[in-house]
């Protein structure tokens, strides 16, 4: 197990269960996850295996019943909700399968959103990032005026606006065609090259192939994936 303290995101022995109709479902039973800076890590596993649950805990969107989460070496266990929000804003970037852009705002405003909606610097940085994802000319368009692939690239730009150490993406290419998927994957590789840790939860073969590390969720625990073809291993 990777215990590298330089890791931007470390999840150790996380447990999580839900009570559903009086029945207890143990979704995570000691899951571990350690992202490496500069690498793309793919998290795979069958549907319902707990990938999203793990990503939410790692991204401080939900709490774990047990276990620890460290962002840049710092344990988040004792942090208040406000401190967690601050940490999400400063250190984490999210990309969702459903894009999750705010429909009422332009692409530029959506990208600047983590800056609490304002500021000249935020606007400048938003335009810069939209340029980087190839949408410099679409800054003034609302999500409804963009294609699915374009919306997801806007979402990627938003995830980067605060220069996070970790980018977490839950099936970011799930709603995209092959060309858009390739474009978005290229972006994630580029993001990793900036020195960030990137986690992609995915069902996609293409995403797994482009990842540096593949981890599999199974029975509530994570295991390094060695079963994939093409020699995909723990570290490539």
């Amino acid at each position, binding site marked *: 197990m990777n215990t590298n303290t330089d890791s931007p995101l470390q999840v150790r022995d996380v447990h999580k269960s839900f009570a559903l109709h009086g029945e207890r479902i143990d979704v995570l039973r000691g899951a571990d996850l350690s992202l490496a800076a500069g690498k793309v890590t793919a998290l795979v596993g069958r549907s319902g295996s707990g990938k*999203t649950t793990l990503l*939410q805990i790692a*991204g401080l*969107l*939900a709490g774990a019943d047990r276990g620890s989460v460290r962002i840049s070496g710092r344990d988040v266990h004792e942090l208040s*909700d*406000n401190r967690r*929000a*601050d*940490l*999400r*804003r*400063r250190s*984490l970037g*999210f990309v*969702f*399968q*459903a894009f*999750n*852009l*705010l429909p*009422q*705002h332009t692409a530029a*405003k959506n990208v600047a*959103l*983590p*800056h*609490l*909606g*304002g*500021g000249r610097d935020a606007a400048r940085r938003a335009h810069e990032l939209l340029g980087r994802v190839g949408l410099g000319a679409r800054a003034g368009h609302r999500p409804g005026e963009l294609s699915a692939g374009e919306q997801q690239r806007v979402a990627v730009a*938003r995830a980067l606006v*605060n220069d996070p150490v970790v980018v977490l993406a*839950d*099936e970011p290419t799930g709603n995209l065609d092959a060309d858009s998927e390739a474009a978005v994957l290229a972006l994630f590789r580029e993001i990793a090259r900036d020195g960030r840790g990137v986690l992609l939860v995915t069902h996609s073969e293409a995403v797994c192939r482009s990842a540096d590390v593949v981890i599999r969720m199974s029975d509530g625990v994570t295991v390094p994936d060695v079963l994939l073809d093409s020699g995909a291993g723990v570290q490539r």
Partner: protein
Amino acid sequence: MSILALSAANVRSMWRRFVGLTALLTVTVGVCVTALAVSASADRAAHDRVQEGAANRTVTVERAFDRPGAQPLTDAALRTLKGLPHVTAVEPRAQVSFGYKDATVMGVLLYATTVRSSVTPPIVGQTRPDLFPLRTGEVVLPATSQGSDLSTLLGRKITVDITRLVSSGQGTGAQDGVTVVGLFDPGWQVDGADAAYADNDTVVEWSAARAGVTAAQFTANVGYDKVSVIVDEARNVDATLQLVQSAGFVGSTLQQELSALPGVLAMIRTTGTLLLAVLGLVALVGAIVVTGALTRQRIREIGILKAVGFRSAAVLAMFVGEMAVVGVLGAAAGALVGAAGAAAAVTVLRGLPEAAAYVPDALPLPDTTTFGGLLLLTVLITVAGALLPALRAARLAPSDAIKEW
């Protein structure tokens, strides 16, 4: 600042969801401003007049037709009143109608009114300095009346139509000649719409004719409509009022008379106050309902905001800010509607004889304090209404807010 900008941007881009509440606020604030404006300026008009000269040293005694045993305001009564301590003068007042018509004036019906030295009308044209007191056979007319320009009559001796009672219940037309020595601003309606001023003898003579008696009989038996009792100092007014009342007369101070608003205006003032309460309720309930609906519809948005690092307080501020923006918009639009409403109300009220005297010439807008207060109140209330639903929404855990990744 930036959160408020976000709120404003939300209101702008989702205006359809806010337009209903904004319109509701606009109408309520508008009606409220109208009512407050009219009653506030009526109050001010009354107050201003009380401050003038001898006006606040005056006790008004009225002839009480409906009060059995009440004394008529005859010469004897005048002497009694004049004899009371602190009283410096008594000014009998009477009003009697007369008509005038010629080639250019289509026909106006005016009320010849005795002049009170304490409350003289604003003069816009005169044939000699120091018009008052008027001499026998002199009148001062409004510059315009009932659509006719009367200013051409200045300086002329005119023949007017009066009524003479010949037998019980039957009158006949008669004529009399008077000289027009002055014109006053028709906006002055302290003695009612369509008042004209004439010297005491003329008013008494015409009143006597109308009653079918001689002038001497009139002052001895019938008596005047009102008597203004002028007191030496304002602080003696209340004591004099008591004496007047215990002598069997129906009296009031001019202060009371002027601040007792006519029914229509009093109703408007009550409506204004009531509406202020209604405004509060409407804004509060509206803000609660709208924010409640909005936060339920925008749960995913809340999740997104939290995911990108908004604290609960920032989410709360955004929703509350939206309602504050709506409150400002509603209050501002309501002020415009209210101004228009006040203008319309003034036009209507000028046509009501009992209210006309209280309606100022200029558009009666509420002062900045009233207006600022109303704006603040509207915003405070919409914000208060938004607070609870917004707080509930802001407290959502991010993972609950985004169910659908």
